[in-house]
């Protein structure tokens, strides 16, 4: 390895040196270099970096040794839905694709806007390639709604993937993603451009082991009249970050960013969102619900940025509610509204607490055992956050319910 490469990250850890080596082994590319540099400015982000205080990848990821755990089951897998599969050793797509969907696997790296703001997104982009496409372009045209499923899983050191979606004017995409872990570090960057009046329904299921790190970064840009509905169910990992950065760049754009996280002992789930109201009369609604057990950690960081002129007539609401199911559960929340425009409606709420003792007793007096009573109340509590998943809502609720009745 050249000295220049080694020096890219200041005081690198073993894991960071391995990332540098991994980068060096990939085909040289000026854009790849720029992306890796964007990552290298921070290295693996951790507690010293703004926005990563509670989600310390540097401390958690000591090396890139593949964890020896079975990959989780995929509850969102459905027959008849085209499935793209990303593993540390390769990429697979079906030969027959639904009408309106075109795939273009590119060997060269695409530029990424705002790479410095999303260091692990930049890392995913910089390390994609080799056995997997450097960039997988997905073109969705109008006509019929397109259904697509993507799976990220499998054993190995690193599972890096980058997928770039273009939703043409009026196109409608129903995308489900299962991030099942299996690698020491799973990093994916998924970008969406929603042209005029395009519709995106994105459902993200994340689960990982206590020896894994996962970073799922999404960048969404929306044109006039576009609408996105995102639903996340996260069970966390040693560290898991599900980050969504969304820009309303033309007026009349609408976004719903909902998430539920359930974190057990030794696991951490981080829901981070950043929404920029870059055009007038756009709407953002956000509901995040979480429940955490002893030894688990939940993190919510939400930010709405409403610029002075561009952000007029913004209608935005941010709610985060967390349940600390046991002593020793941790939840950190940082809701931020940066509102510079004066003609806006912005609401936010943030609470965390224990289950209501009177409700628990009422259920138990009727014969429902404590664990089941707690599960029933918690499932009802998070249900609102999963309603946007449409046909997949039941599958998500079933996973949440099973976890609550067994792990919790």
């Amino acid at each position, binding site marked *: 390895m050249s000295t220049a490469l080694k020096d890219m990250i200041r005081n690198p850890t073993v894991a960071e040196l391995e990332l540098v080596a991994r980068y060096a082994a990939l085909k040289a590319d000026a854009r790849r270099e720029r992306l890796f540099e964007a990552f290298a400015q921070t290295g693996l982000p951790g507690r010293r970096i703004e926005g990563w205080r509670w989600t310390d990848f540097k401390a958690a990821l000591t090396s890139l040794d593949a964890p020896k755990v079975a990959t989780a089951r995929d509850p969102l897998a459905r027959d008849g839905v085209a499935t793209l599969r990303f593993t540390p050793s390769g990429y697979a797509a079906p030969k027959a694709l639904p009408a309106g969907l075109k795939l273009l696997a590119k060997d060269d790296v695409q530029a990424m806007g705002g790479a410095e703001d999303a260091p692990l997104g930049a890392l995913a982009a910089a390390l994609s390639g080799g056995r997997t496409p450097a960039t997988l372009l997905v073109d969705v045209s109008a006509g019929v709604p397109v259904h697509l499923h993507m799976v990220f899983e499998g054993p190995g050191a690193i599972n890096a993937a980058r997928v770039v979606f273009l939703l043409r004017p009026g196109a409608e995409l129903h995308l489900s993603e299962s991030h099942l872990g299996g690698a020491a570090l799973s990093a994916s960057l998924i970008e969406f451009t929603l042209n005029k009046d395009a519709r995106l329904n994105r459902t993200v299921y994340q689960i990982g082991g206590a020896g894994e790190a996962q970073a799922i970064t999404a960048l969404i840009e929306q044109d006039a009249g576009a609408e996105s509905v995102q639903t996340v169910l996260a069970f966390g990992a040693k560290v898991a970050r599900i980050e969504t950065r969304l820009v309303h760049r033309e007026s009349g754009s609408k976004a719903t960013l909902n998430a539920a996280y359930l974190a057990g002992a030794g696991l951490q789930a981080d829901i981070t969102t950043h929404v920029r109201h870059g055009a007038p009369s756009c709407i953002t609604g956000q509901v995040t619900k979480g429940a955490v057990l002893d030894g688990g950690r939940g993190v919510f960081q939400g930010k709405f940025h409403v610029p002075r002129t561009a952000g007029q007539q913004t209608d935005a609401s941010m709610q985060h509610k967390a349940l600390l199911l046991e002593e020793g559960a941790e939840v950190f929340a940082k809701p931020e509204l940066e509102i510079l425009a004066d003609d806006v409606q912005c609401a936010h709420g943030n609470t965390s607490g224990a289950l209501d003792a009177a409700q628990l007793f*009422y*259920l138990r*007096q*009727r014969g429902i*055992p404590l664990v089941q*009573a707690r599960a029933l109340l918690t499932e009802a*509590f998070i249900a609102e956050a999963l309603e946007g998943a449409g046909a997949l809502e039941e599958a998500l609720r079933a996973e949440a319910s099973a976890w609550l009745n067994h792990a919790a």
Partner: protein
Amino acid sequence: MLKIENLSATVGEGEDAKTILNGLSLAVPTGEVHAIMGPNGAGKSTLSYVLTGREGYAVTGGTATLNGADMLALEPEARAAAGLFLSFQYPVEIPGVPVMTFVRTAMNAQRKARGEAEISAPDFIKKSREIAKVLSLDPEMLKRPVNVGFSGGEKKRLEIYQMMMLEPRFMVLDETDSGLDIDALRTVAEGVNALRAPSRGMLVITHYQRLLDYIKPDKVHVLAKGRIIKTGGPDLAHRLEAEGYDGVLAEAV
């Protein structure tokens, strides 16, 4: 038979602990309906909570058994499975959990604890429909979250609905008449009376005699300062109504 002997209990912790039940003894034979009357602060609601195992109360002495089983040693859910049911003075709202889901979960949990088979969905729905009719409950109400947005009368009727669905062996009714108008009171009492059976006991806790015109007790006990100070027939309730607690209490001392 529900048998309570010399029961003492405190509420609060450490130096703040306050004795509410103070050597209470009471026996309700299977098949009988007993009423407990008493002034505010006598310990009526505390008795219902201590019997059913609510947190925040410490039993400092005595025993309570239902058909020989030590209730105080069991978790609240095990007491329920053993057949003990409390109709709450203030039924609790459970957002997000529909009534039918709640009651079916409870019924199957109790059956499982007793080693019985689960009720089938059609059987459950049939039973629910019949009972809703008896209590004049709108079937739509049973699809809504438990007690959320229900009126006081609806909440009390829903308590009776649950009782009729779960068919407990012993029922404690805590101030079931509070907040009810006369029509609702009659409907609720009809539901309770329908559950009177040789195999079932009942303890009706009330502040006023009015409820006992509709649910006729075999015996009336007067509770004051944490213990039963007087026991009599149904006429005792009328005396309390006429003379007030002060008169009866003074006589007992």
